[in-house]
């Protein structure tokens, strides 16, 4: 059984469709963690059929994913998938990340937008490649896409995950954890729907935050 975990903050406009789209593709076990939204995210998710957990105050995407994953582990899943709330992932790509984990080829499968045919806009590409270089520099892991929200975890791996980066630094923390614990992983090609994602200056500010988060984690180790 596949459990899909979605962290959502003020996503009332999109979360309902994302959950319905997943259900239409056969993924009925969906956990939405409403991260202290000020809009009707929780209601929209619940009405669309998801199990909804609510953070009383905003704690960040990393914290929400950890909450959702901890909850999913208690449901005896075969695989746990993390999926973004803004509709940038395609439900049909879930099968690609789930397969290697189900077949026991890896404990974690990371979706990668740079494997296969890439549709990434140039400015985004530069930012993401910078992130990949930093992850390689900091943790010595060569990923093709270090910040993709579509991943699949085996329940054994998910059980040992303990994210400390509450905010955006969780993606690099997962990679650091995979290296430290020597968890077998694979990367599989997935497609990001760029026309639906919110872009602009926000992604640059976010990149700076992720960088400081990585530096801080290094310093405090």
């Amino acid at each position, binding site marked *: 059984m596949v459990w899909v975990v979605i962290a959502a903050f003020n996503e009332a406009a999109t979360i309902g469709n994302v959950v319905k789209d997943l259900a239409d593709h056969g993924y009925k076990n969906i956990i939405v*963690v409403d991260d*202290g939204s000020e809009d009707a995210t929780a209601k929209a998710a619940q009405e669309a059929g998801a199990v909804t*957990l*609510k953070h*009383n*105050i905003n*704690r960040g995407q990393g*914290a929400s994913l950890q909450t959702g994953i901890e909850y999913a582990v208690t449901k005896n899943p075969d695989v746990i998938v993390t999926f973004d709330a803004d509709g940038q992932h395609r439900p049909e790509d879930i099968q690609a990340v789930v397969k290697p984990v189900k077949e026991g080829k890896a404990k974690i499968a990371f979706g990668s937008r740079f494997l296969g045919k890439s549709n990434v806009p140039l400015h985004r590409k530069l930012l993401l490649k910078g992130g990949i270089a930093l992850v390689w520099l900091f943790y010595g892991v060569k990923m093709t896409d270090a910040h993709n929200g579509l991943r699949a975890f085996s329940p054994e791996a998910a059980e040992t995950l303990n994210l400390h980066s509450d905010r955006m630094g969780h993606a690099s923390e997962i990679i650091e954890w995979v290296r430290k614990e020597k968890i077998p992983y694979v990367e599989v090609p997935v497609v990001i729907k760029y026309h639906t994602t919110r872009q602009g200056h926000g992604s640059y500010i976010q990149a700076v935050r992720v960088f400081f988060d990585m530096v*801080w984690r290094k310093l405090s180790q």
Partner: protein
Amino acid sequence: MSIIQILALVFALFAWSRVILRFRGREISMGELFFWSLCWIALILLAIFPQQSFYFANIFGIQRGVDMFVYGGITLAFYLVFRMYVRMEKMEQGLTKIVRELAKKK
């Protein structure tokens, strides 16, 4: 005594009195009382005997006593910011833990 010496002296005495009051109110530990008392006494001595600070500054290879005080102050401030950041980070993680447990209990 110049105006700056008087101001430094008054401020240091005021700050030291706050430290003692907070210790009496059991808000800070004995260690913290000792540390902060040392800092403010040093400032009091520097304000009263500015010339003597040259002697200590020279030991560290610094020409002026005031410079030594500024260097020391900046270093201390950085260290305290770091400590506060660590403490804040711990509190943030504690908060997340509580929020998470509440969310899972739904």
